[in-house]
């Protein structure tokens, strides 16, 4: 295959120190045997890294962005609208991009065989949603506020209410899985997963904001949650002259 002599590829800047949790976070016990101990090797951003899957409408069903309408009956709990924009670090909207969520029901129970917390399953709630961002990078889900639930990480351990988010951006470098939390949750202080992010300001970027304009009268409370991925700056990928000798 002919190799082009020159093309420009975007470069995605590294995330600032303290943005992401250290893989070895001793407070969260499950990291102990699952974090690499060897140094990570720098991977230069080449074609495979600056491209990525663009997953479109074929992945969506009719009620995938309304988790309260996926069954004949209504789920239990407080109906909420969660909306926000998917942006890159330069403030550009990431358009037509797949956003996936999964969460516990109002009682803090996941529809998963491994979840033994004896809070009832809700026959009308799966806790799974998908949507695409619009031309402004905006996504919207209607769902139920998830409950807190206990886990066995430490004595009297409870996860704060959260919704898992999965986003792709437009490059392999931008792939992100995160959790959205709710404002002023009293359980933050004892949660090692939330607190695995070293920087307080970075932690706050995982907390949604109550928004009365999104709240709908006699229907649902509204929360805003913007998700920011790495920015891209164009740079010369390959010059005309070959200098690999």
């Amino acid at each position: 295959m002919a190799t082009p002599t020159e093309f420009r590829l975007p470069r995605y800047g590294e995330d600032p120190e303290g943005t992401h949790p250290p893989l070895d976070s001793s407070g969260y016990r499950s990291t102990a045997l699952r974090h690499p101990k060897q140094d990570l090797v720098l991977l230069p951003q080449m074609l495979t890294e600056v491209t990525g899957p663009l997953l479109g409408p074929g992945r969506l069903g009719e009620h995938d962005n309304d988790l309260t309408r996926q069954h004949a009956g209504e789920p239990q709990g407080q109906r909420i609208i969660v909306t926000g924009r998917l942006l890159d670090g330069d403030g550009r909207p990431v358009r037509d991009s797949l956003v996936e969520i999964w969460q516990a029901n109002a009682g803090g129970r996941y529809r998963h065989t491994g979840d033994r917390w004896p809070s009832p399953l809700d026959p009308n709630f799966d806790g799974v949603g998908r949507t695409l961002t619009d031309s402004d990078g905006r996504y919207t889900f209607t769902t139920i506020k998830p409950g807190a639930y206990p886990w066995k990480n430490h004595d009297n351990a409870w996860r704060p209410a959260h919704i898992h988010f999965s986003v792709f951006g437009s490059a392999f470098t931008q792939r992100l899985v995160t959790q959205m939390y709710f404002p002023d949750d009293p359980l933050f202080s004892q949660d090692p997963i939330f607190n695995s992010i070293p920087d307080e300001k970075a932690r706050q970027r995982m907390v949604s904001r109550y928004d009365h304009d999104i709240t709908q009268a006699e229907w649902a409370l509204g929360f805003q949650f913007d998700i920011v991925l790495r920015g891209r700056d164009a740079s010369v990928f390959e010059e005309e002259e070959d200098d690999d000798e």
Partner: protein
Amino acid sequence: MTELLPTPSQTVGPYLSIGLPWPDGPHVVPEGTPGAFWIRGTVRDGNGDPIPDAMIETWQADPDGGFRHPDDPRGTADGEFRGFGRCPTEADGTYGILTVLPGVVPGEGGATQAPHIDVSVFARGLLNRVVTRIYFEDQDNAADPVLATVPEERRGTLIAAKTGDGYRFDIRLQGDGETVFFRL
């Protein structure tokens, strides 16, 4: 342009399999595609125990070395080729991805990269994904610029071994034979 700070990563937790897998997720190419093969492997922790709550995602070039993406100026792959695969691990820590051999991909300064697949690994207990690459033992990997940056004694962890129906690529998150993971 406004400078915005990125949203932090968090673990997928133990229940990722309610939200992320798709029935056709492991199929980078549809079943029956000429030349298609399975990449299978086991994901293990620092004790060597299989991890039943992990997920593998793959991203790769088509057989001509092209990407179905606007930032690849050489045109796009055909409609059947998704380039992307996603497979949760089973109770025994195994995964499988049905794909085809990626082509040679341009590197920097006129160099080329050996056929490779980028891999993300997610799991309970992993607060951020870890990233690795799959190379193939029966391909010419000698001049690959990324493999060259990996200490020689660890390169083997990036090379998939030939099997009856494709290749085997095991992933070890920690400990003996720890897989090489990359920083992006």
